[in-house]
């Protein structure tokens, strides 16, 4: 009797493993065939290799650029700007949210301005930033931060407000003031939301920084794209795009890892 059920359980487990394996296989298949098709299409001139480059050309350029060190410089510049913009945007946004939570008066006063700023396409402010902060690092980082700060403020502020009042009641019944209520209840209860805005902000900061580099920079992956476009070197454009894809994914995964470690306890 028992062995029969064990057998069934084993079959069930095998089925799960098979399914998972199949999914991975198809995923890998899509990736490989994409690059293969791209390579073949370029070599047979189905698409213009001058415009669309090819994996082998991108790879060759990757090796050359690694050896002369220029790729590393460009990548690290962009990565630095993105991480800084991301951190600034998130921290400022959370700080603003805390201030709004603190002062209901201020939050009602600022409400329409937040709506306007949020609906505004932030990249349109690029020229103003360049005029204000000069054509360089500062502008690019500001762009990376600006693009995420308002949405972070709004989302985190809402999370603060949606914390169950009864938790606050508990802490206030011990005589806690507003500051204690914020740090022992409101903020920790909003962790999950803050972490999930981090995930959105990773993507947004990349947008801000790349656009910033389009506008002003002499270095970075965004600069490589614009430069490659201007001198008709599309291999360089493709290389930059691939590197951005890989790095953005890595950052996203890191945040997800952080989420797993921090948020496990928050489901009541």
């Amino acid at each position, binding site marked *: 009797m028992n062995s029969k059920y064990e057998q069934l359980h084993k079959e069930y487990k095998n089925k799960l493993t098979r399914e998972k394996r199949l999914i991975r296989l198809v995923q890998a298949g899509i990736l490989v065939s994409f690059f293969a098709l791209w390579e073949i299409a370029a070599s047979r001139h189905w698409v213009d290799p001058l415009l669309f480059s090819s994996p082998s050309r991108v790879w060759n350029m990757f090796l050359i650029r690694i050896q002369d060190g220029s790729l590393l410089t460009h990548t690290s510049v962009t990565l630095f700007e993105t991480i800084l913009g991301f951190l600034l945007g998130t921290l400022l946004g959370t700080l603003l949210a805390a201030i709004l939570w603190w002062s209901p008066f201020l939050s009602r006063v600022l409400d329409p301005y937040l709506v306007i700023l949020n609906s505004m396409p932030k990249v349109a402010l690029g020229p103003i930033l360049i005029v204000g902060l000069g054509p360089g690092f500062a502008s690019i980082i500001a762009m990376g931060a600006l693009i995420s700060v308002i949405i972070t403020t709004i989302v985190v502020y809402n999370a603060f407000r949606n914390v169950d009042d009864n938790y606050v009641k508990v*802490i206030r019944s*011990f005589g806690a003031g507003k500051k204690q209520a914020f740090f*022992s209840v409101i903020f920790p209860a909003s962790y999950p939301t803050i972490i999930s805005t981090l995930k959105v902000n990773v993507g947004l900061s990349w947008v801000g920084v790349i656009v910033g580099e389009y506008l002003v920079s002499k270095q970075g992956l965004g600069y490589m794209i614009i430069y490659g476009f201007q001198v008709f070197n599309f291999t360089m454009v493709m290389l930059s795009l691939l590197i951005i894809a890989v790095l953005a994914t890595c950052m996203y995964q890191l945040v997800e890892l952080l989420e797993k470690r921090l948020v496990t306890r928050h489901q*009541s």
Partner: protein
Amino acid sequence: MALLELEKVEKLFFSRDSMTTAIKNISCAIDKGEFVSVIGPSGCGKSTLLSLISGLIHPTSGTIKLDGKEIKKPTPETGYMLQQDYLFPWLTIEQNITLGLKTMGKLTEETRKHSLYLLNELGLGDRANHYPNELSGGMRQRAALVRMLTSDPKLLLLDEPFSALDYQTKLKLEDLVFSTIKQHRKTAILVTHDIGEAIAMSDRIILLSHRPAQVIRIFNIPDELRNELPFQARNHPAFNGWFQDVWKELESLEQQI
């Protein structure tokens, strides 16, 4: 001397186009060590009354005095237990029960030990390092009771603390809360909609009217019932008679609307 005195307490709630009188002219006194239940039709303002006593909201007129001092804001001298446990899910049970002490800046090795001792008393000694989501509903409510007791309040406010539990757990917890409160010689006010619970647990029952809440009648529970554990009291021959009395009074209130 009375521990808690309410004098002509009145509470109005305002909104742009209306104003509601939630509580109208309530005066009463509760002695040290007494267990008083407040019952009344649903939505009559029982919980509002507790919030007033806790100092979370303020009366529109009248005064509420605890130990002769007027209550202006929430103080650690009153403990509050809510319908649900509201344990913080991101803290362990130990961190949860010492939260009050920490908030008051009174968390020392001694008070921490005392908290753990109380936790042990209520049968959760082995759960100190667990998180709330690993505990059952009854255990969580017990932890909430410990959390309230650690700050050593004079007055306990119980806002339907058993209403979210299943019947069996509720009966067991009634006994536990009752004996814990008696043992620590605490004064308690219990808001409930369960007549049986009110009779089984309390020394006095205050019956409130429909909104605006006023005191309709006060039942003094006889010694033979109030000295028993709630579970025993429920099985006492006198219990049913009292139940009928309170029931009728409450029923006649319901029919007035």
